[in-house]
């Protein structure tokens, strides 16, 4: 925008200057003509008595007389003249004037030939005619020099104008640039108001409007997050109470139909709990969590999530976490990352070979979660990110895990890639959270804070 503005302003300035110069040239040409014509007429009037006397002293029958140069004036004459009789014959002419008559009528007044402007006057009842000629080249030269005087400064003015316009535009646009940089720094991770600073009134209005917009956006996201947090409490607490009471009931009942029914209720509550958790995660994925202003170290989060599934827990599964050194960090929301990773690990545990560990590999591109198991065809892989898709025959799980991970990956600016067989294996499945180039880097300070 700055370059275009500079080009436009410079172009318009130069154009205006050229128009002004052109108009000035026209006026100058008119004024020059007036001055030259006046000078021509004045010269003729002054010269006429002198040439009349000279003609009278001339013997009849003589050819045209050429006057010699005046002493000290050997240069080319600007004005030349001829004295002609009433028939047009040249009686006398100045040193540089031709002996042939000027191609101009003998009537008094101005006349133009292709090369000269000629003023004609007469005396002795029109029997002696004086014609003074001014070469048009002389006038053109004067005009040319005048135009040069007008246009030459333009050559210096154009670069000066560019520098002046550039300086003024840069200075005038600096607040816009600063405001633009501040607005550009805002994202889902940073919805803080713009830093107050001296702004022109026009920009203050924009800054206030952007602040209002950010505030509304922030409140909307907070409301969504608060809603999902409250929903989590409202959904989980009664399920937890029902599950705990059912488990107490199971403990108190003797083996028999009543205990079997209680066990069935417990299984249903577990299923309901999983479904509620997935729906809450989906709601969170839609609540705009994903990016954060500050980088978080990945390994502690990966270990905490992996620990939820690890073999040390009842019904756990061996999870191998392969860390990266130096510690890696990314500017992502820890909850979004944890939910996405939890779903990938849960998917691997649920659908992978039960007797082989799930591997979680932290890489400079993100995280790879790999499990052993049967190879999936490419059509099945394509369907897996769809909600309630369980890759055909296997009906375990809610079918929402990979859809949630995919939504959260996008919210984090990453992508979820699914491949089978897993990289470096002949079987299995690998789900990877792949962040853009440069999004994952060495942790600030080299180590996690906690």
């Amino acid at each position, binding site marked *: 925008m700055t370059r275009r503005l500079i080009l436009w302003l410079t172009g318009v300035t130069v154009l205006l200057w050229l128009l002004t110069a052109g108009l000035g040239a026209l006026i100058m040409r008119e004024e020059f003509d007036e001055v030259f014509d006046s000078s021509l007429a004045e010269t003729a009037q002054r010269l006429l008595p002198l040439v009349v006397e000279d003609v009278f002293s001339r013997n009849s029958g003589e050819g045209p007389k050429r006057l010699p140069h005046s002493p000290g004036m050997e240069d080319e004459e600007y004005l030349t003249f001829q004295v002609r009789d009433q028939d047009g014959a040249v009686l006398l002419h100045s040193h540089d004037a031709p002996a042939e008559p000027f191609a101009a009528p003998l009537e008094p007044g101005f006349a133009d030939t292709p090369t000269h402007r000629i003023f004609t006057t007469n005396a002795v009842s029109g029997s002696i005619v004086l014609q003074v000629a001014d070469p048009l080249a002389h006038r053109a030269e004067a005009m040319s020099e005048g135009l040069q005087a007008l246009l030459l400064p333009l050559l210096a003015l154009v670069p000066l104008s560019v520098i002046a316009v550039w300086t003024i535009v840069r200075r005038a646009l600096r607040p816009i640039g600063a405001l633009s940089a501040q607005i550009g720094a805002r994202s889902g991770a940073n919805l803080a108001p713009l830093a107050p600073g001296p702004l022109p009134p026009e920009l203050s209005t924009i800054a206030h409007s952007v602040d209002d917009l950010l505030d509304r956006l922030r409140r909307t996201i907070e409301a969504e997050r608060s809603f999902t*947090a409250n929903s989590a409490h409202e959904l*989980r*607490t*009664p399920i937890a109470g029902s599950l705990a*009471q059912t488990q107490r009931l199971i*403990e108190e009942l003797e083996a028999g139909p009543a205990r079997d029914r209680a066990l069935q209720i417990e299984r249903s509550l577990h299923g309901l709990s999983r479904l509620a*958790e997935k729906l*809450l995660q989906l709601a969170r994925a839609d609540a705009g969590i994903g990016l954060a202003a500050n980088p978080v170290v990945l390994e502690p989060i990966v270990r905490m999530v992996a620990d939820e599934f690890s073999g040390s827990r009842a019904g756990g599964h061996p999870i191998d976490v392969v860390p990266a050194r130096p510690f890696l960090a990314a500017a992502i929301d820890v909850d979004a990352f944890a939910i996405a990773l939890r779903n990938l690990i849960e998917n691997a545990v649920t659908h992978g070979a039960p007797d082989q560990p799930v591997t979680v590999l932290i890489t400079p591109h993100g995280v790879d979660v790999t499990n052993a198991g049967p190879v999936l065809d490419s059509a099945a892989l394509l369907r897996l990110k769809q909600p309630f898709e369980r890759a055909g025959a296997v009906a375990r799980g809610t079918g929402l895990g990979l859809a949630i991970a995919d939504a959260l990956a996008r919210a984090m600016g990453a992508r979820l890639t699914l491949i089978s067989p897993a990289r470096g294996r002949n079987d299995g499945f690998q789900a990877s959270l792949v962040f853009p180039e440069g999004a994952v880097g060495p942790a600030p300070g080299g180590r996690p804070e906690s």
Partner: protein
Amino acid sequence: MIGDAVRSHIASSGHAVDWARTIGSAAEHLSVGDYALVLLDLQLPDGSGLPFLKGLRQDGHRMPVIVVTARDQISDRIEGLNNGADDYLVKPFDLGELSARMGAVARRTAGRPDPLLTLGPVVIDMANRSVVVDGASVDLTAREWAVLDRLALRPGAVISKAQIEDALYAFGSEVESNTVEVYVSRLRRKIGASAVQTVRGVGYRLTAP
């Protein structure tokens, strides 16, 4: 509903439980009694449990605290642990997992993370609540187990009679004067008379028979 089930579950394993339904009530309980472990919900009628937990730690309370909450986000968990929680359990949970976590946290706090304790011929599995003497499994009642569990947390250390009573009876319960002696006596009969030594005027300690 969940509080009632949790209390019933823990009591069934022989431990004494005091249930405070508000932060104010919990503060009162903690001001008059020593507790082996605290289960803390975060969303309580009179406020959040996190500032309460932080205050406990600032006041010098060192008992293990397990946060039990519906807040399932990893950031909530980090915040809970950073405020002094020893573990974090998200609702809904299995009561069996709650017991396992309580046992693990209690052992970790006592400086004995290994759930297996071997004292000569006596092998106590704290995680699975089982006792084997000379290779034979021994059945313990809930109260007997509660006494053994309290002693086994710090084997060799003298545990006062009052501390054992606290582990057996909830706040305000009527405690008969010879209850501890009765359960210690039964325990001696099952795992060996010399396994539980009496330190006269002070309390009891668990040793290799």
